[in-house]
């Protein structure tokens, strides 16, 4: 495997939806340690709706597919997850463009665009977007995107690059245990979030790992 086609992308997103739905309760439990306990439910709600509306999504190309996903996710994920995950998919769609096949370099660009998309949404509401160290899902997404970019520069294989990126996301999520939240779900409780990972970052680690395992 050295390319991701539109069909591959639909399989990846479908796997992602399955992982999110399977983990609804564990993700909620993670969020109840320092947040308000709605993360798993809010995220699963959007991805359940995505599966429900699956046949109505746009399968023309990778960009169109991701954009049609973004519309459902933005509307049906509850809480902050709608704007955050919706804007990530929207930015990813725009970066992908109307192509039916991408390689590792393009995948890295798409993931970097998702990071920027989330940060811009945060900036509109809070004056700044989250960065690594704020204890949000950015703590997992940025290392994963950077790992993909580094692998692309090094000319690595697509699948092994994705495995490394998933491991980087898991490590990033793990590192959130040690820090106090400055933004996001636990941003109001600060120091009392120390000892618990950020639920969004941890969730991304689980999702990326699951996707990579399904491809391997």
């Amino acid at each position, binding site marked *: 495997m050295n390319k991701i086609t539109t069909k591959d992308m639909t399989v990846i997103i479908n796997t992602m939806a399955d992982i999110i739905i399977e983990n609804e309760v564990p993700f909620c439990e993670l969020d109840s340690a320092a947040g*308000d306990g709605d993360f798993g439910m809010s995220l699963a709600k959007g991805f359940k709706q995505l599966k429900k509306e699956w046949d109505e999504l746009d399968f023309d190309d990778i960009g169109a597919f991701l954009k049609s996903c973004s519309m459902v996710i933005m509307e049906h994920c509850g809480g902050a997850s709608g704007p955050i995950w919706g804007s990530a998919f929207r930015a990813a769609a725009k970066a992908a463009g109307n192509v039916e096949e991408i390689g590792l370099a393009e995948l890295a660009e798409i993931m970097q665009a998702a990071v920027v998309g989330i940060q811009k949404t945060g900036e*509109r509401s809070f004056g700044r977007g989250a960065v690594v160290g704020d204890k949000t899902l950015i703590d997992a997404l940025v290392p994963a995107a950077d790992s993909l970019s580094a692998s692309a520069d090094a000319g690595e294989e697509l699948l092994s690059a994705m495995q490394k990126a998933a491991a980087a996301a898991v490590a990033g999520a793990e590192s959130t245990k040690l820090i106090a939240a400055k933004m996001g779900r636990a941003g*109001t409780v600060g120091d009392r979030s120390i000892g618990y990972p950020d639920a969004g970052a941890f969730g991304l680690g689980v999702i990326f790992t699951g996707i990579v395992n399904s491809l391997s």
Partner: protein
Amino acid sequence: MKKIINTPETFVIEMCKGLIKAHPELDFIEKFKVVKKKEINTNKVSLISGGGSGHEPAHAGFVGKGMLDAAVCGDIFASPSIKQVYTAITKTESKKGTLLIIKNYSGDCMNFNEAAALAREDDIDVDAVYVNDDIAVKDSLYTVGRRGVAGTVFVHKIAGAAAEEGRSLAEVKAVANKTIQNVRSIGFALTSCTVPAKGTPTFELGADEMEYGVGIHGEPGRQRMPVAKADDLAAAMVSQIDEDMSIAGAEVAVMINGFGGSPLQELYLFNNSVSAEIENKGAKIYKTLVGNFMTSIDMAGASVTVLKLDSELKALLDAEVNTPALKN
């Protein structure tokens, strides 16, 4: 946990439908879970609030004359979506503009602000205020700020009265912000709440423990501690409010807000303790509200809110109000 329920999925919609049946002066837009006044006065600023459900009567119970024009209901403890908020804005559009009263949580801020941006593209004049009255968690330059809790009800009341007077959007926003600057709250929980979809308590408390400085979604607060007597709790809570915002010599409005699982007899008893402490601090109590206004589903416990008043805020607090959950 036993609840009066059909299914968790239909919980919020069935609750809103029941509210509308008891209050036919209100409308419910089911698709977007918006509770609004049937008659929108387009010559006054429209006021919209909302957020996750689970805080009843907030916010739908405060839709009516002298308070909100619409409340947007999210799922339990989850912000409503951008489209839901956008629908509330467009369905209550007024010639004088719209003020969003947002409790300061990331999800609410993002969804309400993105919706406001969409509405501005339609040339609707929308502005927003952020309520952040909970002193339980220290604010710093690095956090997203304090949480919005029961003080929001005072903001609804005062901004609502100002809007009814025909004030401009900028004027209503200014008096809403003045209220926010002068209101402080702190709460405690004796039990956790139980979210219907999860069915089990969000956090565990020992039989002799309480959570001090708790949030209204069962989030942690300042500390876990042994259950304290009402008088001791009142002394600690009023002192902390006074440290954050000195009340000596001030006239104040007080709200003893139940979180949903404590009986009124305990709330009145607690008011007896709290009012004595407030007077001890040299403040004069102008008005007291005791009841369940900003709940956390079925959590036992209460919060104390103190609002410092001037003549403008007093007049607006006394103005006519007629909503399901607050009347005069």
